[in-house]
Structures are given as structure tokens and as C-alpha cells.
């Protein structure tokens, strides 16, 4: 049943029409990670050495030593302003997108749970739009970026406290193969 569902969900994902982003640009496989929807790190044909990585390679996206492995931008309450502290992170991502013109990014905006679901969806959109605009100013192309909202539907934290809500006022950046 669960397997059947998973297959169905995958089929649905693959057959959904419209503005579906292009299929994941996975590096050639040959390693063990074959799960759909996740970018396999180090899946290039060349072995990745421990002490050196290419900042503009796909592997950098998952390498904890790379700023590209950081994907979340947090917002203040009732705010859509991208704070200065995220400028260098966004600059790294914009630079990566410019260097990898075939790469696409889905930016998912999120809101805390208080209030109407649909209104919160619109609030999350304002956050993802702000991230998109910042990335464009820093060199990413508009057609590489899609800003969407998950509203209050995918909270990172579910406690009813301000520190928890702060984690949910968030923009997440996903690359081709991750969405």
C-alpha cells in the first residue's frame, strides 16, 4: 500500500503539467544514491578528495564546508525584508546560478501558523519573492528562479512559542533535483 502510494505520488509528480520545472539534472549515476528528488553529492565520475572541493560544482551544494549547503533565510515577524546578514549567502547562491546557467532554483516561502491558511500562503509568497529579487540583483537569471509559497503548511517546528515560530518564518532554496 505504502509502496503503491509512493509510486503513485511519483507518477503524479512526473505527470503534473503546466509550469513544472525541468527534470532534475542529476550528475551521472553510478553511485548508490538513486532516490528520486535528491541530489547525490559526490556523484561525479571523478572521486572527490577530502580536502578540496570545487565551489562551483554540484557537490558543493551538499558539502557542509560550502556556503551553498546553507539554504534557509529567516525573517522577522510580519516582515519580508531580507536581512543584511544573508547578503553573502545569497551572493554565493547567485554566483553559483550564474556559473551553472542550466541550474534552476525553487524558493519556498513559509509563514508561522497564526491566522488564515490562505492569507499565510500569500505572506510566504512575499518572502520567497523577496529572496528571488535579491538573487536576481546578485546575478541570477529570472528564468532560473521560481518563487512559491508553502504558507503555514510545512512548519519546521511545531511548538507554540516565538522561537519556534521564528524558525517557520523562512525561505528555503531548493536546486534542480531537490524538488
Amino acid at each position, binding site marked *: 500500500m505504502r509502496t503503491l502510494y509512493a509510486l503513485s505520488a511519483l507518477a503524479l509528480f512526473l505527470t503534473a503539467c503546466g509550469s513544472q520545472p525541468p527534470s532534475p539534472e542529476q550528475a551521472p549515476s553510478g553511485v548508490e544514491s538513486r532516490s528520486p528528488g535528491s541530489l547525490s553529492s559526490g556523484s561525479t565520475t571523478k572521486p572527490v578528495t577530502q580536502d578540496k572541493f570545487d565551489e562551483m560544482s554540484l557537490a558543493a551544494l551538499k558539502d557542509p564546508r560550502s556556503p551553498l549547503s546553507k539554504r534557509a533565510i529567516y525573517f522577522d515577524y510580519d516582515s519580508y525584508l531580507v536581512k543584511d546578514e544573508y547578503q553573502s549567502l545569497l551572493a554565493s547562491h547567485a554566483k553559483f546560478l550564474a556559473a551553472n546557467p542550466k541550474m534552476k532554483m525553487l524558493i519556498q516561502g513559509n509563514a508561522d501558523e497564526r*491566522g*488564515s491558511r490562505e*492569507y499565510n500562503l500569500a505572506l510566504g509568497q512575499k518572502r520567497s519573492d523577496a529572496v528571488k529579487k535579491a538573487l536576481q540583483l546578485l546575478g541570477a537569471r529570472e528564468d532560473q528562479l521560481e518563487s512559491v509559497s508553502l504558507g503555514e503548511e*510545512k512548519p519546521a517546528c511545531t511548538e507554540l512559542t516565538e522561537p519556534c515560530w521564528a524558525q517557520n518564518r523562512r525561505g528555503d532554496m531548493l536546486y534542480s533535483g531537490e524538488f
Partner: protein
Amino acid sequence: MRLRVSLVPLLIAGLVAGVFISSPAQAQLTVEITGQSGKRLPVAIADFAGERIIAQALTSVIRADLDRSGLFRLVDAGATIDETTPPPFGDLKSREADAVAGGSVGMAGDGRYETRVRLYDVPKQVALGAQAYAHTGTQLRTTAHRISDFIYEKLTGEPGLFSTRIAYVVKSTGRYELQIADADGNNPQSALASREPIISPTWSPDGGKLAYVSFEAKKPVVYVHDLVSGRRHVVANFKGSNSAPSWSPDGKQLAVVLTKDGNSQIYLVNVDGSGVRRLASSPGIDTEPRFSADGAHIYFTSDRGGSPQIYRLPAAGGTAERITFDGSYNVTPRPSPDGKSLAYIARNNGRFQLSLMDLATKQIQVLTDSAKDESPSFAPNGRMILYATEVGGRGVLAAVSADGRVKQRLSVHAADVREPTWAPLRK
């Protein structure tokens, strides 16, 4: 007062090329009456004559229906009463019953049952009407609800709600299910199961389809789902977010919210997804569109004035008119079926509460004392409003009469229930 309703899960076919799965729902909705009308009409539902087991099953559902409505007080009839012999009016009067229903269940020639019912006015000692129903054993509950609707309409002058259905979303760990159940919570069926959220389901005016927003593509996309065939199609999947569907009263188009041109803005789109056109332009957020019952206006939430408030504009396009002024957060407008009032969610001292505005006098009544109300939905007769709220940290559904007196709660054990929508009357 607590009614435990039994679960009779049915499978509805819904496989389209392996795209998604419909299955019997595991969760059981429990209906709890939490408030009653001040003056309730005393009614006796007598034991029916004839086929004893069937008759008992029918009358127990009818009694539960009428009791749950909060408008009636059930009185023991004291005797079996059929639809042909005049009931013992004197005895019923001493039992303080204002109305009594009697009937019989017989076998029809084709193996089905034939149930006959007659309703009487006890003080006037006259019959108010009679009905006959041919049905199978599996149509017991449906038949009982139709009898309840007949009794309700004869005694109140309004259509009953016992044969209507509701849809809602059940969230359990890692799983979202769009379910459809009878208005009493029985017979839950799953229309869609997903690992990703499902929000904003809403019935087509003919009751045959649901529009909703699903996040299965990692972003919100609007679908229309045909409940008979189990097939569905994408109505809006543009770049950005697609959400907040609302059916036009003729069922031919939907108002939706799209971000393809920037901000969250309201568009109209044909049900097949063609002919998308922008309805209005504002510098801020416009969302939660909802057609008035006559199709003339679209009510919506906008932050154009600095805080989220409810506005309306002509469905043909034009100038928006602000409707709510009190407070700094008024959202989720739902115009009543008669067009005279507006249900919505208002934030009062940090509490999100279901409120009702009389559109002529602008008078506002807060209908609940809860703190996390969401997603109101009028019953097709306008008498009750179904909504989502939270009790003990868990999502439950609740219904309140438009006068605020009758209150019910519908909950599923160990699961979150949310996003309710009341189906139109079956035609």
C-alpha cells in the same frame, strides 16, 4: 450528550492510471453536541410497525438526526404508531409532544423495503404530510436521513441538512487525506491521500466535484476532482503559487489566486483551466476570493489598507469596496446562501474567532468563544456554519447555528481535522 456514530466505510473507485488512490477512510468522526437552542420543539418519533429490525434502525437514526440538530426535544411516543391509524393524540398531548411521526416498513415485491411515514400536528390533531420510500437494506441510513429532512422541513419550513455531505482534510503523521462524509460524520470516504498538504477544498455548486489546493508538486497547485469518476485535472499550475479556488454559482468558472505576475492576485479561470484572466490589480495581497450566492460580487481578503481586511468587488470587475473596519485582522469571507450576512474570521485580542456580519446593518456577532477558528463554511440552508478550530492542541471541526445557540463538535480520534466545506443540497 454524546453520540457515537458507527463507521461504515465504503470504497469509492478513484484510480486514474495509477495517479492517485481513493480508499476507505480509517478515521472515525465523532459528533458531540456542545450547545442547544433555547426553545426546542418537542417531537415524538414513534416505533414504526412492520419489519422490526429495519424499523428500529431507521427510527434510531431519525431520532439521532433530530436531536443533533439542536432544534428538537425528543419525547417518548409510548406506543408503536403506523401511518394509517390516527395516533393517540390525547396521550401524546399529555406527553407534551407537539408533533409525532409514525410509519411502517414492509417488503416490496422486488426484495426491497417500502417505508411509509406520516407526520402529525398533535395540538391540532391533523396530518402534516406523508412520504413513502423504496430502499434496500444498505440504504437504511440514507432513507432515515431523507425522512429526517422531510420532518425537519415540515416543522421548520426550511430544507433539512441530514442528507448533505461534508468534505475536510485529516492530517495524521506524514499523511494528508481529503475525506467526504455524511453530515453526521458517518460513512467517511477518502477522495485523495497525499504526503503533502491539501488545503482549501470547496464543492462545485452541483455537488459533484471538489476544487482544492495540493502541494504534491512541492508548490501549491489548484485541481478540480470529479467525485463520481475519481478523475481530476489541473486548473491552475502557473509559475509561482496557485491557490484559494472559489466556484462561480453557475459552476463554469473559478476565482483563483495566482502569483504568476508578481503579488498574490485574483484571477478568473474556466473550470477546464482555459481562459485565465486577471480580475483586479492591487499593490498588496489579494486572496481568499469567494463568490456571493447570486454571483454578482466576489468577496476577498486584501492588505491594501495596511492590514488584512475584507473587501468585495463586482464579479465583472470594477471598484473594490471595503466591508470590515473593526480590528486589524479580518479574513476568510464567506457570504451566506441568502446573501444577507457574511461569516469570516476576526482576530480579537489575539484570538481568531468566527464572526457573522449582517451586511445591511453592519452589525457583528462573534459566534464562538474559541481562539483558533478557521475556514468557515455555510450549510446550504444557511442555518449552520461549519468551521475548523482547535481543542487541546488538536484540530477539530465544529458547527454553530447562525444565531450562535446550537453548537456541535466533530472530531477524529488521534488526528487533526481541518479545512471543512459543506456540500450543497443534492439535486
